[in-house]
């Protein structure tokens, strides 16, 4: 059953991609689906783009292991989407063409900003892609017995096909399909879980509390052992990182006007809130009650088969049997495919639209050549991502997402929000602060426990904090502010005068 659904998802999405490719002829079609996507459809596509493997697999795993503390992971997207819908969406739609860099370039000098934004977009997207590939590899390995490496290769190949063949239209259709499947899937999973306890929340929570241990941390804070510093750093990184995610921001260029952009964000917010509530109150707790300690889901070492990221899939088996396991696994697989397609498209846009077209060719390029180059870029990036996915096998994907988002929070978010709302920002300040944010985020990540200890095998991390965002975001904002206020160049005067464009948007 599982393999059958797995093949249905592959055949269905590749079929959508082929249909989409016949409707993609111009660069605008390829990068933003010609700006013809409706607000409601785009809202579901944004929800599909956002709700990644980390949502269904990783956050359920965090509730399974650490209980209540998952509220930080689940609450962050609501903060992020509120910032986007209220403070960014109108300006994004009014000034953007293919990438969020277009908005910043409306008032700052184009070349240095595009080079910086393309670098941050690639750093962010490649790491985020790697995280999704890790989730996909583990999922396919557990369900179909295909080796982790081959699983990674299959997902990467599909991602490249969606983007290279169908562009934004195919990516949108895959994301809408996935969002609907996910909404239906988590609803049924939650209902079946509650049905296992005769729809009694109290019975489910009692069973989960006794399985989780006597510390009461299923419903009380403390499971992740976060200090004040690390909790704030994690929260800031997730929230601002999502608000600066290039693959989410570029979805606002696929609709026709500001009203549709706002509707998109509102629909996405509703869908995300709904899924979060079900995961936090039912699916996460249900997995503790029904999967934890259940010998059917333990391997020979006493750990969860396939790792903790698989608990929601095991829960599906516990409450709905083998057929429902196949359905939820297929949905999780579709979830990953939709997100990786969006991320890959954002990376390709950064390379071909920002760097090649606007920096190297000064905007003068044949659009068919631009599309052809985008396809080559998708293949090359796919190879890089597959190699990264293999190197980071078996890391907790929600944790890796938090590290990746620290890059978006430290670079794209300060660049965007200051260029939109602070007249004093200059090109020099933006570039210096952006570089500072990017370098600090990556450096602290590498020197921290996730890479220095877990990946490189050292005994102690050089940077002791697991979440670097608080430091890198503060440094990025501070550097942009200091450099900008001391910038007395002619370019700075021009940058400040062009702020009128933002006011009008």
């Amino acid at each position, binding site marked *: 059953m599982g393999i059958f659904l797995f093949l249905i998802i592959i055949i269905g999405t590749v079929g959508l991609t082929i249909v989409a490719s016949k409707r993609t002829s111009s660069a605008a079609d390829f990068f933003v689906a010609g700006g013809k996507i409706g607000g409601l459809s785009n809202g579901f596509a944004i929800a599909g783009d956002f709700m990644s493997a980390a949502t269904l697999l990783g956050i359920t795993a965090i509730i399974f292991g650490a209980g209540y503390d998952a509220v930080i992971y689940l609450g962050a997207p*609501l903060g992020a989407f509120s910032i986007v819908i*209220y403070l960014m969406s109108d300006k994004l739609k009014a000034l953007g063409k293919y990438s969020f860099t277009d908005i910043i370039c409306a008032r700052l000098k184009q070349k240095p900003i595009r080079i910086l934004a393309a670098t941050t977009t690639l750093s962010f997207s490649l790491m985020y892609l790697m995280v999704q590939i890790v989730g996909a590899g583990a999922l396919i390995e557990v369900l179909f017995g295909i080796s982790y490496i081959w699983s990674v290769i299959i997902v990467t190949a599909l991602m490249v096909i969606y983007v290279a063949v169908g562009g934004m239209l195919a990516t949108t259709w895959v994301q809408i399909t996935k969002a609907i499947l996910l909404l239906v899937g988590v609803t049924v999973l939650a209902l079946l879980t509650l049905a296992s306890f005769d729809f009694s929340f109290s019975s489910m929570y009692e069973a989960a509390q006794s399985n989780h241990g006597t510390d009461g941390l299923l419903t009380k804070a403390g499971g*992740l052992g976060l200090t004040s510093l690390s909790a704030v750093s994690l929260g800031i990184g997730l929230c601002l990182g999502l608000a600066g995610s290039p693959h989410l921001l570029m979805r606002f260029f696929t609709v026709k006007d500001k009203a549709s952009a706002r509707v998109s964000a509102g629909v996405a917010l509703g869908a995300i809130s709904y899924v979060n509530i079900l995961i936090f109150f039912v699916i996460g707790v249900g997995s503790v009650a029904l999967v934890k300690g259940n010998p059917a889901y333990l391997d020979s070492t006493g750990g969860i088969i396939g790792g903790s990221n698989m608990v929601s899939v095991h829960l599906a088996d516990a409450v709905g049997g083998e057929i429902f396991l196949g359905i939820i696994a297929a949905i999780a697989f579709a979830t990953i495919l939709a997100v990786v397609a969006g991320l890959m498209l954002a990376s390709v846009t950064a390379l071909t639209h920002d760097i090649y077209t606007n920096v190297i060719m000064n905007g003068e390029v044949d659009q068919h050549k631009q599309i052809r180059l985008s396809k080559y870029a998708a293949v090359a990036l796919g190879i890089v991502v597959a190699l990264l996915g293999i190197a980071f096998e078996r890391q907790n994907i929600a944790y890796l997402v938090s590290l990746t988002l620290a890059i978006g929070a430290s670079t794209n978010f300060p660049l965007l929000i200051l260029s939109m709302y602070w007249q004093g920002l200059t090109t020099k300040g933006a570039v210096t602060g952006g570089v500072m944010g990017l370098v600090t985020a990556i450096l602290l990540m590498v020197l921290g426990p996730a890479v220095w200890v877990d990946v490189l095998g050292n005994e102690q991390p050089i940077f002791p904090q697991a979440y670097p965002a608080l430091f890198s975001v503060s440094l990025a904002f501070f550097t942009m502010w200091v450099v900008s206020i001391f910038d007395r160049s002619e370019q700075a005067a021009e940058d400040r005068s062009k702020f009128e464009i933002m006011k009008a948007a």
Partner: protein
Amino acid sequence: MQRQWVYTGIILFLFLILVFGVPLFPDFMAIDIFGPMNLGMLVFLFLHLLTPILAFRYLKQSQGE
């Protein structure tokens, strides 16, 4: 102050209560409200209900202008 800043502030304030509640006042957030629901879980639920409600209210207001 423009309403979009007020709405953003409300949502970020609720989110920050959840964030700071984890390390700084876990016992307070664990106060029982009803059944298995405690204060932290109630704030979480309130945030998730209020966010889309405010968003759609904002959409309606924007469309009326």
